[in-house]
């Protein structure tokens, strides 16, 4: 890595994703542009989950940084046969970096971690109400009963296993979560 590398932002020494990097990443994700976009979102979500479950305080920013580093390797001509495994390797490295940084800001982080969600519950609930109302009747009834009733009895009534019932309910829950997130982002 040279100091006069135009891709390096001097002072911060942090490589920013440029058009070339973005194109290289898209091409590596899939030959079809739409599919590449979907794969990008999926990989970003995976990275975000990984950082979140590792207890990192800024999972989405770290996910972007991992994707930036991946793009950088591609523009440098590194051949990467398994993109997701390589991304995982970068992520592990970032987790270690974050862990070291975490020790130095432990007190602040502890305070941050102890924050409870405040003030947004009502808007989240309002968004959820709208999203629930937008569900097909069968799905709305299912998720309502999933939380309100005995799941073993409910699964028997549907003629499916409790696990299958849970999978259905969780898919609806995920759909609701995405719907609520979109609505809250819009406001």
């Amino acid at each position, binding site marked *: 890595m040279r100091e006069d590398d135009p891709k390096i932002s001097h002072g911060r020494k942090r490589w920013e994703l440029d058009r070339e990097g973005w194109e290289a990443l898209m091409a590596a994700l899939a030959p079809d542009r739409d599919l590449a976009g979907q794969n990008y979102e999926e990989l970003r979500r*995976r990275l*975000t*989950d*990984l*950082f*979140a*479950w*590792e*207890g*990192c*305080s*800024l*999972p*989405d920013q770290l996910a972007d940084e991992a994707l930036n580093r991946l793009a950088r390797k591609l523009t440098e001509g590194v051949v990467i046969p398994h993109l*997701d*495994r390589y991304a*995982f390797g970068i*992520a*592990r490295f970032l987790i270690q970096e974050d862990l070291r940084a975490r020790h130095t800001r432990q007190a602040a*982080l502890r305070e*941050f*971690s*102890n*924050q409870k*969600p405040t003030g*947004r*519950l*009502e808007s*989240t*609930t*309002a*968004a*959820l*109400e*709208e*999203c*629930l*109302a*937008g*569900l097909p009747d069968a799905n*709305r009834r299912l*998720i*309502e009963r999933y*939380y*309100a*009733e*005995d*799941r073993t009895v409910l699964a028997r009534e549907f003629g499916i296993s409790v696990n299958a019932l*849970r*999978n259905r309910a*969780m898919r609806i*829950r*995920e759909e*609701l*979560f995405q719907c*609520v*997130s979109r609505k*809250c982002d819009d406001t």
Partner: protein
Amino acid sequence: MVNRDQLIAYLLHQMAEEERQAFSERWFVEPELRDELRMAEADLLDAYTRGEVSREQHKQIERYLLASSIQRQKLEFAQALATALPSARPRKIHWAMVGAVAAGLVLVAALSTVIARNRRLENELAYLQSQALSQPQPAPPRGGVYAIFLPAGTLRSRTGIRLSLPTGVDVFHLELGLEPGQDGEFDSAVLSISGRIVFRQQPVSLEGAAPLARASLWIPSKLLAPGNYTIRLESSGTPVAYYSFTVLR
């Protein structure tokens, strides 16, 4: 094949570090395992929000699953879900229930005063009916009236307010406690179940003065099927307060 205990052990950092790293590498490239993990996380946050986790898990969830704003958004969603779709299943008894029991006792005390008020309201209704008064508000119809007071903050209540409507009740009178400073005018109150609006009252009358001000709603009881209800008070078309309660079968 991964069982649920392993998923939870991963999410709550109960695995040895080497095992944990191998597990992350695995779920990162296995879509089905990823989905299982996301469902296990949703289960944990639902259980946390509904007070259904052990004391130890409670601590671990706060330590490992709520460290970022992204995770706290997931928690807020779980809380909203618990408000709109509260659990009606019996819960495990544990330390968190102590607070719930205390809240229940407060509720019983509030209900006692409400029952006494019921009698007075019935008398008032009989008088109004005999006078054949036409009200600008939705008029309390004939028949029995069941009144209940919902304090402010029921939306955040983990215990939930549950009630069984007695037979012969035609009208459900709800008094909604207001937060200090909220005793302005309200355009409407919207009652919904699972996001579906079942009743709207316009305008909403206020009773009492601060700090005991209450918004008053009269709801035909035939509209109240068993389920979990949310009430939204609106002022100039903007939601200003939420309440929730459950009608039992």
